[in-house]
């Protein structure tokens, strides 16, 4: 129930982020007992690289606290969509915070907005939509994969945000979003292999007073076809873009500084031996420290093309 609003203490049933390090985080459910494969109820013990956590012990603890593991410690954090995206069980390829932030911004989602999303996928983006539109808006999210739709629905319930979302199992390319949503949406988001097939449905679902549209596609050809369809239906402000976030890894670098001036000075016979020794021991020790940052060796080079468009107000919608 930990996704509804900021809270201070861990309650039973909360999803909690167990934070070990930047590269090691886990989303765990704060329940004292779980059922194992053999159907037995056993104490909920969570294993990490720093030993095990008896999950019962974190219930009632303040979020942000340090908790003991059998071989170390970790912090417990209240989940945010950002942390959830990094820890959720992947059922599909997911979209990450940089793209999602741009989607939310460009779709102008704020409390009260009615948003349509397809597909639901792993629900990573859904959590962001829900944060942005609750408590007065609503998300309609569609997936053609039944198990995924069911899992998402169950997850939203456990996360305490089910009131603001309806999950549909439907092939929207062929069947659309349903008549009951005609003219109801402020924004439509598509993450589909053939977004162009769903554009006419998005057109119908958007409010007569207009609305915003976004399609996320890994390949440029998907965007090309989508834009053709958008143009045909009278969408404007069509913009395609890519966002790539770079991590800047902060570190102190120690760099050698070499002295070459001394080579200009001729040596007297007597100083030769000692000077030579001095050079050897001195030169490599002269260093300068820099607080600097650089990108990791490998960066994300592509996630997807984001295509945004506006449906202007009062475009007549023929009865298709």
């Amino acid at each position: 129930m930990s996704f509804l609003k900021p809270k201070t203490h861990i309650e039973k049933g909360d999803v909690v982020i167990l934070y070990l390090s930047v590269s090691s985080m886990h989303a765990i459910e704060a329940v004292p007992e779980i059922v194992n494969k053999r159907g037995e109820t056993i104490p909920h013990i969570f294993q990490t690289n720093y030993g095990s956590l008896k999950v019962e012990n974190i219930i009632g603890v303040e979020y942000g606290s340090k908790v003991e593991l059998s071989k170390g410690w970790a912090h417990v954090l209240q989940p945010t969509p950002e942390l959830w995206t990094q820890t959720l069980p992947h059922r599909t390829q997911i979209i990450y915070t940089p793209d999602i932030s741009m989607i939310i911004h460009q779709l102008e989602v704020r409390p009260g907005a009615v948003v349509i999303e397809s597909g639901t996928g792993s629900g990573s983006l859904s959590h962001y939509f829900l944060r942005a539109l609750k408590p007065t808006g609503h998300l309609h999210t569609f997936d053609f994969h039944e198990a995924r739709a069911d899992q998402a629905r169950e997850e939203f319930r456990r996360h305490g945000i089910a009131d603001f979302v309806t999950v549909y199992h439907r092939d929207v390319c062929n069947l659309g979003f349903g008549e009951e949503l005609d003219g109801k949406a402020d924004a439509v988001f598509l993450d589909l292999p053939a977004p162009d097939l769903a554009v006419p449905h998005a057109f119908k679902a958007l409010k007569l007073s207009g609305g915003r549209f976004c399609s996320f596609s890994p390949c440029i050809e998907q965007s090309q076809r989508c834009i053709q369809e958008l143009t045909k239906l009278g969408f404007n402000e069509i913009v395609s873009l890519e966002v790539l976030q770079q991590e800047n890894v902060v570190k102190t670098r120690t760099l050698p500084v070499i002295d070459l001036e001394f080579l200009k000075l001729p040596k007297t016979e007597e100083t030769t031996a000692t000077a030579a020794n001095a050079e050897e021991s001195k030169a490599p020790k002269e260093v300068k420290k820099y607080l600097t940052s650089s990108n990791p060796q490998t960066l994300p080079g592509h996630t997807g093309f984001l295509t945004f468009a506006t449906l202007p107000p009062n475009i007549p919608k023929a009865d298709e």
Partner: protein
Amino acid sequence: MATDTATPRIQLGDYIVIQRQKYTKLQKFGSLDTTATLGKETLELKSLLDQPYGSTFKMCVKETKPGKRGAQRQHSLELCSETELRSTREVLGISSSGADNRDICDDGEAQTLKPEDIAQLREECNDSSKIIEKLVENSKTFHNRTEYSQEKYLRKKEKKYFEFVQIRPPTIRLMLDIFYRQDAEKVMGIRVDTLSQIISYSGVCGFGSYLLYESGTNGLLPAAMLNSIGAGTEGTLVHMHPGNVPQKQALLALKLPLEQQQRCVSVNLYSVLREFYQGGEAKATTLPLEEPSKVEPEESQPETPTEEQSEAIEPITKKPKLDEAQSGRDGSKGPPRWHLENKRATALMHAEFDSLVVAAKEHPSSILQALLPLVKPSRPVVVFSTCKELLQETYMELKTSGKVTGLHLTSNWLRTYQILPNRTHPEVNMSGNSGYLLTGYTLR
């Protein structure tokens, strides 16, 4: 065409976005006499009143006045239908085009019309397609150009002579585009991708109490946060700033409901911190008021003077006389508004915040030292700066302090694409600086 009763209508006092092709401008529609200036065109706005937002208007030349930089044309605006907006190309029905540019010698004299001719044409014709038709007729090379080159020529001319404007209600998205295009400094260099991530990482939404320090974005950053807090919700925002007056242009332009506006408390950083530490009602009336110095020499004032701001003015640069401060401002009965805001802010500060956003022109280190203790544990912290070195130092300080975890220093790359049949490529220019974000989560 169907009309939608839900579409809001343009009212006096509204801020409006005027769009002419890709150019957009934020304008206050203060009175019926208000005019807007778009380059060499002056538009009379009175016919906008009560028309639905999203409508398109045709610019009709009324007169041409000599201006400082060439003639300034005065236009009235006429509401027009969508069907008038066909592509100039279709209207002209151009067909013959060369296969490539091999036969074109660009001797700079391809156009036989003289500038005077064009100026006259422009006064006579209200219709850009007519003007362009004449230009094409009188171009010696147009029909030898490739189709691509012809379209480029038409687009260029269309842009210059395009006679339609659309009026749209301001949103965060549209205002950021306008501000950033005019001068990125107006929003402290916060680019669209960066703003979108500040909103995400800060977690600002309809629930919770948020703290923002910003040193000047013409109100855009508090407006974006308040926009995400929403109307009819329980979220609140304390907006700290270093100046005498909070920059509020974007906040006002959003035309939010009063209850929502009131959940944003704008206070001076020094003034409110003193109130918080020295605190208490007793002291507030017995101690003389200190005026924090104006720290940010580069601070930019809102370009459009907005009379609403005077309501919020705090007397922190004028040295108030001791008796004045004790008896209330200007001898009026209640305490001055800034003082009440300080009180509301300190109450929220004592209750602690659910997130902290700092977008400072100053070194963020000392600001974080002062504000971090006001944030609950397990809450996001987002620090923006255009200077990576500042955030590197802050990163190290926070890491050493152990008060914040999950620290990331990030920046962004943003590319827009031209996607057209057979002519798809990234745009040839891109923005060079996203600025930097330092993000993390507070610990207990």
